[in-house]
């Protein structure tokens, strides 16, 4: 790696502010900022622009490290197991799963909501933090967006295969008439969901690709082999780094961020409508849209940390994905985890205050009924565990953060399970009550979806820059023409 020597940093120079009307300038002298108020740089050790290119592009140019092939083979094996089980499901029928009346939705929709929620952090990082000008997002947005795409791919599988006779799926998914010339029913949130999820997947792909174009050009210009040159060159679309192009590009990027922000908020709101628009006690609540969105961001940041902490350790990216990045993500988890905890409390309060005996029963049944273990797993993972992040010592320990991020993911899977299964298994008529137990096919199909997710992620880090090269360069002081490190002379 052609690491350039670190550039010397001049010490903090704080000039007294010009005070035209001040009678005694000496009394208004501005002192140096205290040490603790200084912001840590986003890229540590004053790495040069060229070092950033080498460090990130180098990952997908050099042969993969030894662990990559075993990891890939295991992931691909788990993924194949999922496809085999889906073939079994389609050829035999949904009876191979454990769900049946009264719990007609169980692990399938739990997994769907779980994976869609995971995806939301990617869009939050790439779009919402961009609009808020949070420059730290540049180190993590590319891999988080990739995670979004792969999570949406995993999510999309479950609602499609759970329908039973899957060969009829195009008729009730796409806006085409069935054999009796009846069109799909647009008053149903399930159809809104089809449009929300497919739009979300497509727009996330467009946004991700737009961000990739300048970096693909970097890879094209560094490529040595012919195949790489052609492949990267094809997808780089002839990008030259022209400022007239950058001008349109930055505008388009801002607009895509502006479009993705209302999109991501609408997607999980519409997912929550699948439940909230029904009349099932425990589902029919107005708190669902904001509560689902907060939970989605909470779980998504958990997954970003689960992926990024090993990634930065294995590829030695500590100068680009710094402890400050981890800390900031932990703070988002703390904030959204607190919102989720508040929502759990408020749900219970409204169940009592609302006066519906069925609603109150549904909530008592959640906490103390046959699925009490799932409810209390959810509470301990989602309500208690994020509060460890109040302590800086824990936020800065990569190992602790990684373990906590997995706990968050477990908790959020249980949240969806609790909402779906505990509400369905005992609703209005005691004669129709039941108890859902997953079959082995349920369990291994879900495990298999992690295989798909990891396979796609491993291919991503193998062939594409896992960190946005041009964006990380853009937030360094070396890129600022008004900073001494960017070449600014004294007169600036």
């Amino acid at each position: 790696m052609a690491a350039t020597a670190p550039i010397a940093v001049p010490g903090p120079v704080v000039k007294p502010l010009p005070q035209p009307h001040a009678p005694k300038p000496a009394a208004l002298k501005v002192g140096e900022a205290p040490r603790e108020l200084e912001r840590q740089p986003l890229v540590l050790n004053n790495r040069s622009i060229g070092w950033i290119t080498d460090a990130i592009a180098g990952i997908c140019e050099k042969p993969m490290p030894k662990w990559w092939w075993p990891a890939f083979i295991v992931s691909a094996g788990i993924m194949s197991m999922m496809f085999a089980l889906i073939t079994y499901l389609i050829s035999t029928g949904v009876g191979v799963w454990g769900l049946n009346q009264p719990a007609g939705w169980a692990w399938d929709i739990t997994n769907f909501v779980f994976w869609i929620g995971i995806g939301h952090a990617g869009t939050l990082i790439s779009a919402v933090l961009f609009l808020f000008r949070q420059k730290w997002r540049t180190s993590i947005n590319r891999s988080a967006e990739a995670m979004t795409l792969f999570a949406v791919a995993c999510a999309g599988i479950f609602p499609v295969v759970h329908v039973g006779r899957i060969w009829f799926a195009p008729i009730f998914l796409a806006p085409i008439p069935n054999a009796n010339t009846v069109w799909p029913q647009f008053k149903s949130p399930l159809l809104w969901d089809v449009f929300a999820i497919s739009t979300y997947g497509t727009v996330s792909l467009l946004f991700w690709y737009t961000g990739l174009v300048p970096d693909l050009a970097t890879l094209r210009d560094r490529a040595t082999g012919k195949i790489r040159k052609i492949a990267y060159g094809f997808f780089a679309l002839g990008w030259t780094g022209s400022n007239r192009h950058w001008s349109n590009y930055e505008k388009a990027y801002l607009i895509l961020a502006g479009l993705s922000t209302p999109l991501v908020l609408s997607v999980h709101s519409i997912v929550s409508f699948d439940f909230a628009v029904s009349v099932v006690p425990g589902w029919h609540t107005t708190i669902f849209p904001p509560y689902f969105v907060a939970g989605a961001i909470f779980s998504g940041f958990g997954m970003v940390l689960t992926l990024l902490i090993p990634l930065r350790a294995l590829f030695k990216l500590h100068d680009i994905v710094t402890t400050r990045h981890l800390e900031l993500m932990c703070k988002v988890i703390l904030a959204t985890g607190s919102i989720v905890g508040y929502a759990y409390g408020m749900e219970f309060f409204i169940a009592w205050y609302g006066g519906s005996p069925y609603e109150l029963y549904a909530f008592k049944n959640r906490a103390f009924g046959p699925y009490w273990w799932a409810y209390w797993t959810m509470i301990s993972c989602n309500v208690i565990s994020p509060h460890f992040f109040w302590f800086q010592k824990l936020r800065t320990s990569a190992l602790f953060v990684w373990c906590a991020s997995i706990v968050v993911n477990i908790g959020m899977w249980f949240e969806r399970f609790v909402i779906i299964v505990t509400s369905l298994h005992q609703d209005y008529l005691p004669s129709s009550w039941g108890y859902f137990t997953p079959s082995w096919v349920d369990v291994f199909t879900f495990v298999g979806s992690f295989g798909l997710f990891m396979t796609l992620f491993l291919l991503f880090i193998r062939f594409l820059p896992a960190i946005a090269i041009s964006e990380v360069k853009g937030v360094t002081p070396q890129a600022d023409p008004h900073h001494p490190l960017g070449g600014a002379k004294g007169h600036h």
Partner: protein
Amino acid sequence: MSASTNTSYGLLASFETPADIMDAAIKCRDAGFTKWDVFTPFPIHGMDAAMGVKKSQVGWFTFAGGFTGFFTGMTMIWFMNSHDYGLVVGGKPLFTPLYAFPVSYELTILFGSFATLFGLLFLNRLPRLHHPLLAVKNFKKATDDGYFLCIEAGDPKYAPEVTRTFLVEQCHARLVETVED
């Protein structure tokens, strides 16, 4: 134009730092060049003003796409659930914009995003299979850590020797080379 400049695409000047190329861009703008561009590995803040580049028009494409998307959603749902085959569900009206809103909202975003990407490609005249600059070996640094300024031979103010001198002496270019077309 003489025969010798016919094969030349222009002059490519390279710079060391963002500040250097920004100063050079200001000088080129003030010298009245029109067919010229700056090439950098990342967008440099303030470069649009330094070059005198007008505000990007991408937003109009987004607006057109988003408007089309919303209109498509509303029309499609009205046609399908009210006009062509009226579906009565829960005693609700055959069509109201309320239940058609979520899908139309998603289509606004979907069409708007596609229009933004295609608008971006159209305004940038991309994809492009080849560009004379991409054949320059040194230019590969434009996507790494190099800063370049190119004045095209098609510029009315372009004169090979005078422009080269201008780039070296006025703009303090580190290196100036002729780009073959």
